[in-house]
């Protein structure tokens, strides 16, 4: 069992899902409120990681993070390190490829709030921020939890993009899914099995929790 890889995977998944909470929520809120001409295109861009082969996405991200690129050179000038093949680079890539898993459930739950509920809050004297925190956020909570869990689980299990961006550096970018692949290639089936079982258990537990939670919320939220 590669505990170092487990640690990298867990930190990456946790950081990614925590970063996606404000990022995903901001994008979802903006999309839920606006109805502009290019909305379909913006939604398509956000959903793209869902349908694109991970290697293709990984390739573009690798090019985008290279030391010749704007982002890569900026990172080098700030930290003196390369963005590609680093944990930070991997984190950045994870946020991009898990974005649709965060935005879609948040967007659906925000869109499901009837506009009159929001207007009733304004007419009750609640400011837009208060309305967001006291009305919209609690009502969208099931979608937000789903978004968090899905982006956590998805990041934990990602393989292609991680391989392209992070390479396979122990303690830095070698995640559990890469370690499993390494073990299988090296015929260490016992190790591959225990790591796979851990990923399976985490995925199953988190998804079960989401379904249970959402069912309970749905019972409360029925008007």
């Amino acid at each position, binding site marked *: 069992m590669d505990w170092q890889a487990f640690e990298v995977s867990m930190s990456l998944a946790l950081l990614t899902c925590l970063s996606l909470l404000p990022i995903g929520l901001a994008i979802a809120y903006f999309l839920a409120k606006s109805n502009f001409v290019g909305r379909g295109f913006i939604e398509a861009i956000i959903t793209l990681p869902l349908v694109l082969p991970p290697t293709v996405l990984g390739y573009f991200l690798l090019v985008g993070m290279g030391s010749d690129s704007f982002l890569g050179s900026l990172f080098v000038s700030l930290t003196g390190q390369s963005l590609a093949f680093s944990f930070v680079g991997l984190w950045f890539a994870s946020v991009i490829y898990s974005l649709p898993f965060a935005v879609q459930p948040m967007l659906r739950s925000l869109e499901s709030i009837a506009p009159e509920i929001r207007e*009733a809050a304004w007419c009750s004297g609640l400011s837009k921020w208060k309305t967001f925190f006291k009305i919209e956020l609690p009502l969208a909570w099931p979608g937000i939890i789903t978004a968090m869990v899905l982006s956590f689980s998805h990041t934990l299990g990602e393989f292609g993009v991680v391989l392209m961006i992070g390479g396979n550096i122990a303690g830095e970018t070698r995640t559990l899914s890469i370690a499993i692949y390494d073990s299988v290639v090296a015929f260490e089936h016992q190790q591959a099995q225990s790591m796979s079982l851990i990923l399976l258990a985490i995925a199953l537990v988190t998804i079960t929790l989401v379904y249970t939670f959402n069912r309970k919320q749905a019972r409360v939220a029925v008007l």
Partner: protein
Amino acid sequence: MLKVKLQQTRPALLDVELSCEKGEVLALVGPSGAGKSTVLRCIAGLQSPQHGLISCKGHTWFDSDEKVKQTPQQRRVGMVFQNYALFPHLTVMENIKLALDSDKSAHHEHGKHLLEQVNLSGLEQRYPHQLSGGQQQRVAIARALARQPEVLLLDEPFSAVDKVTRRKLYLELNTLRRQLDMPVILVTHDLDEAAMLADSLCVIHQGVTLQQGSPEEVLFRPDNVAIARQVDARNVFSGHLVEHENTLKLKWYEHFIEIASTSGFRAGQHVYWTLSPSKVLLHQRVRKSRGDHENPLIGTICEMVNLRGITTLILKIEHTNGINLQMDLPEHVAMRNGLKIGETISVSLLADAIHLMTE
């Protein structure tokens, strides 16, 4: 006092002018899509017209000329939405407390008082989905009143409840309104509801307010025939004014009808006229009276409907090419006179009650 003037050409035409005194209930009536809810939304600040002026209690909420546009939060409006729009994740008490802006220690007491006012004591801890439609409406009213609003806006508040509950809520609203000293605007498409609950009616059609006045005035003395049609006046006919035996009379087919008030009209003019069905008088068959000389007409009963003690007759009037006239009379009068379909009766049109209108 609330004063509202709204004008816009897009997205839908709006040409609205209305006013509502404090303590007065003004019903905004009109068919679906007439712009009633848009007017309420403009008053609440949820949308803005292209031009207009909205002021309440001396405060200007909206003035397109002066570029004044207050937010819904600044306007102190109590709004009851059509589907009540209660916050589903909060209890009854939490729904109300959220709209209270007094200091926190007084919150609970004030909330309890509001719930007592709308007869909902004991349901503080329930969630909206655990309440009936009528109870939800009461919570919505209590929440709207919680802010101590300067105007109360009710958007079709009875459309989501059944008929029995609706009757109960009418009575409750009548009691409640006596305790309120703010302008109340009630949007409805139900004229009976409006006439029962409101002090004044404002008819709106295709975004334009046609007439504002007391229910009696709007329903029985509409300004023109378009309004008469909007308020579903039951006897609307057309005729000509003629000079007959030295007085101005209405020539209706072969009849010369006497009218009490013809001011503003002249001989030869084509006019419309209306008469409330309750102002058509049945001539007693056994005992003739003096009133029988007032615009007497003979007609055949072609339909009879009884509803809550009132019998509505549809009469085919003689010498009118088969025009139908409606008359209402107490059920016991119809019974005592032995009225039946197919019988011919004689009636009088009360000259005082005939109302002339232009196109």
